């Protein structure tokens, strides 16, 4: 943002950045530790992605300023994320759903 931030308000931002840094460090440790838990594959995937998403949200929200960003950018990103999930899940489901009972497709997720 090119409006004038005076030094004091930048200091607030800096404090936030450092807190986020700390949080990211902690979450990284958590991620690694979680991998030593004896979880099943799908539980493991689920947990890993949840933690990664939290870290990603912190980077997106605070380092990339999305928390205060304009609607247009948010909309473009939401649309992208939507198509991203389409691209990930539809081929996945198509692959599973061959010659099987269509009513049971959700079981393999």
């Amino acid at each position: 943002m090119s409006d004038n931030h005076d030094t004091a308000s930048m200091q607030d931002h800096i404090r936030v950045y450092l807190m986020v840094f700390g949080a990211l460090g902690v979450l990284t440790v958590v991620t690694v530790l979680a991998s030593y838990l004896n979880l099943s594959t799908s539980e493991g995937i689920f947990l890993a992605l949840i933690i990664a998403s939290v870290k990603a949200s912190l980077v997106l929200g605070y380092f990339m300023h999305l928390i205060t960003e304009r609607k247009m950018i948010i909309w473009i990103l939401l649309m992208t994320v939507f198509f991203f999930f389409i691209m990930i899940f539809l081929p996945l489901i198509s692959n599973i759903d061959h010659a099987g009972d269509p009513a049971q497709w959700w079981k393999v997720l």
Partner: protein
Amino acid sequence: MYSNSNNHDHHEETFIQKYIFSVDHKVIGIQYGITSLLFLLFGFSLMAIMRWQLAYPGTEIPIVGFIFGEGGVLASEQYNSLGAMHGTIMIFLGIVPLAVGAFGNYLVPLQIGAIDMAFPKLNAASYWTYFVGGVIMISSFFMPEGAARSGWTSYPPLSVFENGQTIWLISMIFLITSSLLGSMNIIVTIVQLRVPGLTWMRLPLFTWAQFVTSFLLVLAFPPLEAAAVLQLMDRVAGTSFFLPSGLVMSGEIVDVAGGGSPLLWQHLFWFLAHPEVYVLILPALGIVGEILANNTRKPIWGFKSIVYSMVFLGFCSFIVWAHHMFLTGMGQAMSAFFQTTTMIISIPSVVILTSYFLSLWGGSIRFNTPMLFALAFLPMFGIGGLTGLPLGLAASDIYLHDTYYVIGHFHYVVAPGTIFALFAGIYYWFPKITGKRMSETLGKLHFWPSLIFMNGIFMPMFIQGLAGVSRRLADGGVSYAHASGVLQWNEFMSISAFCLGLSQIPFIVNIFMSLFTGEKSDRNPWKSTTIEWAAPSPPLAHVNFDSEITVHRTAYEYSVPGAKEDFIPQTES
């Protein structure tokens, strides 16, 4: 307020700065235009060679036969090469650069009152990346391996082992990058550089179409770029992204790690390639809208519905792709899902086409050359769209998939569809770009035969397809008993194709003649409302307009009751 003397910050430009590495969107647009038209001509020639073979199998191909061994007759691999390259060149080197790179770059800034695109240097970079990609693609013909021959769809495992694919893939990476840079530029330009007063609902349909098209390009192309890298690695690094275990070739087990999936390529490829076909049609729909409004002297019927339909169409285009994959063994649930979304996506197309037809009612129609092409577009696109329905329904697609029916369907949409709209656009905007008028006589000499011969080539394809003639057959179906009843159409279609080629001569002559000896055009020869016509013909270098532009009206204020003339420009208060 704006005058040529403002060019104090542009010191005398060298020839190279002005014409080769220019950052002026108009020069870049013309560069795209010339390059893409040459590629279209080349791609057409490849098809003409193929069609000779189909009409007169075993005979020597005239003029260029010496290039192909064995008495000037095409070997099957050569036929396949021509087929794959025809498709690739027409789509990626021809239509998209013309519709988006040329028309988009040239006209979008003008239609929104801007002096240039948001990122002029990026614009130049995107053209030169396209150029390099094009050179690489054409160079493949001269490589020892020869050009690609696995279809423009490049399906593995064939494409991993067949000749010519490596260069094809490298070229695609350049072309995709060019597209990404260009479409990013268009989006930012339209969002940020509209002049005061130009609200979203006052944007002309051409610009709306370019906006939606650019989103499709930005979001749909990257997965194909990823997939192209993966296929390249399968070819050169020995990976098995797309190669399943236990693959046998020529009786021997292939020595790769295996474990890959050919279907993965198909999903990633069609994830782009379906939105790609909407990239091919949307700019055309935009151009037709402009020309219909202008030559009926009426606002377009249902402007808002058309805008919403274009946006909805763009959105839906991302969720229909597997209708190209109905025969890959997907189960009922997913086939039903994609069939449903495909049926839904026909709705916005129909809304747009119907609105265009309705726009004609009560209009004072001027039958000039751009209008003739725009009018012909309507039923041609209609045929193309309607013939798509049996393909979108899984049950009928089982019989029609990979037959000539499909070729007929998509060519109707792209050839007498998009290409006619692009011709219309060239005739329409030629005076603005060059300051000269084109000959109406030559224009009509171009139009009527083209219309007749387009139908001559593609209508019989439905007949052949319904009889079961497969596509990509080097012998045109001769070796199949079920095709025997419809093979006589081959000669008819080929002659139509050659005549279609000849029909382009008036067009080419017209362009060159008009450039040098054409009647001078004033600023607004078609008496149009949109902003590009407020600029001089041609627009001023780097600044486009010679007066300040503000917008006070919607895009198509024709025949407004009580007005002085039968049109009020957007810029008039």
